[in-house]
């Protein structure tokens, strides 16, 4: 079988992608695969990113919302690295860690499809950084509790909670001064 890109050489890479029951076959030779830059012998990046790109495109088009809204979402851009969602969908990779935040609203369905229905990390928490994350989460929870206590006019309990928050914020800043 001839390579579908150059129509000259014998195709040596064959793969099929099936998205929503629609089947597309690829037959490409080594040279064209290399020229496309995504493939080097011994790695599997070519097929994975081809597949992923198809998946991300579909995920982008999936929501049958108003067209303008969909277009705006497609143009969404990461302020840190400048990558647009469209570029991400094309190359199947993020430009920086902030892209996760920038494209957050679109990510849940994409991640669920890739990770067997999961979109939330339950694994390792880095020791040093994780400690702070844990404290931040505690402070956030306590702040919510504080609002509720104030609304319920439980001022004594609110004062205790406020002190707890202060002491946690203190611990984050180390030996530094009073937190407001």
């Amino acid at each position, binding site marked *: 079988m001839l390579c579908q890109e150059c129509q000259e050489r014998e195709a040596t890479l064959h793969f099929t992608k099936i998205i929503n029951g629609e089947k597309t076959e690829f037959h490409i030779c080594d040279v064209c695969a290399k020229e496309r830059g995504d493939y080097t012998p011994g*790695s599997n990046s070519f097929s994975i990113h081809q597949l*992923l790109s198809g998946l991300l495109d579909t995920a982008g088009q999936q929501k049958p919302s108003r067209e303008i809204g969909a277009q705006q979402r497609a143009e969404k851009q990461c302020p840190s690295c400048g990558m647009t969602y469209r570029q991400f969908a094309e190359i*199947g990779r993020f*430009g920086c*860690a902030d892209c996760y935040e920038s494209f957050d609203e679109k990510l849940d369905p994409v991640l669920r499809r890739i990770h*067997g229905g999961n*979109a939330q*990390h339950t*694994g*390792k928490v880095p020791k040093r950084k994780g400690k702070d994350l844990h404290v931040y989460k505690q402070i956030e929870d306590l702040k919510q509790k504080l609002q509720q206590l104030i609304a319920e006019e439980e001022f004594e309990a609110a004062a205790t909670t406020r002190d707890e928050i202060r002491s946690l914020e203190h611990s984050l800043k180390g030996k530094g001064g009073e937190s407001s």
Partner: protein
Amino acid sequence: MTLHSFIQNATSPWMKNEGPDSDIVISSRVRLARNLEGITFPIIANEEELSPVPEKVEAHFAGHSHKRFGELSLIKMNDLTDNEKRILVEKHLISPNLSGKSKAGAVLLSEDESLSVMVNEEDHFRIQCLLPGFQLQEGLKYANDMDDWMEEKLDFAYDQRRGYLTSCPTNVGTGLRSSVMMHLPALVMTNQLNRILPAINQLGLVVRGIYGEGSEALGNLFQLSNQTTLGESESEIVEDLRSVVSQLVERERAAREQLLTQSTNIVEDRIYRSLGILSYSRRMESKEAMQRLSDIRLGIDTGIIKGIDAKILNELMVLTQPGFLQHYAGEALTAEQRDQRRATLIRERLTLEEHDGGVE
């Protein structure tokens, strides 16, 4: 360079130790993808943005000693010739991607080469631990240790909800890819593997041929790895893979047993023919070499062939790759010359075994 010392050089020191179930599981690998906070990922960053990454590695880790891996050294891609890079790829220490086009690329290596940290590949760091035989849990433990050690000095991009943030969304969360390389000749010969593979895929694991084009597996070698990295803990991911691999090990053993009792003559004939061809050929293409070496390995593991070290498959798989052949020849070789050199090298390797009674 004598063939003996050449083999020493070509095979990583970790390969000398036999691991558990090493008659079927060649090696276990655990990789963790990590990125630094505040630095664009290598895929779009320019060299200037990426250069602080190897600098940090050099400052904090190169020349330092790790409790498990000993002294670590940093090798920069720019300091290597093309063939040297190719050799690192053939030894599975770096990826073709890192050797080919990565900016500010480097690798941090342990003395026994069981640990490598690729710098500025698709992610800023790819911590990889490679062990002989079936040792996934140990691999995870060591890779994890290394991750903790690096995290003492570096701020990794991490998000409470998404975990470790990686360039490719297929790695996000744990950033963990665990894989084993298995030699499954009897399951292939008895046509059982075709029936087992779809079930393995349904369990969220991926099976790939090694060096195979498309889905073709050369030398009956298969790589099994986890597909998903998000939503399960590291130990759950590794345990899922471990349990499937141990079932495959049992099935391969049963299939070998069955082949040997029911088709002894056919199996022996196949193994001895391959030994004969490898011992006398003057030209050998890499594809055929892999197939014949698989037969030799099966012969050794089942006790049909005696006096040849079981490591021959692992060694020759590396030694007969283009980079090593050229390194041994000391010059660039055409494909035709490589086929001739490959046949010679295999013949020499088999004779070395006969005369020396094994390579240490």
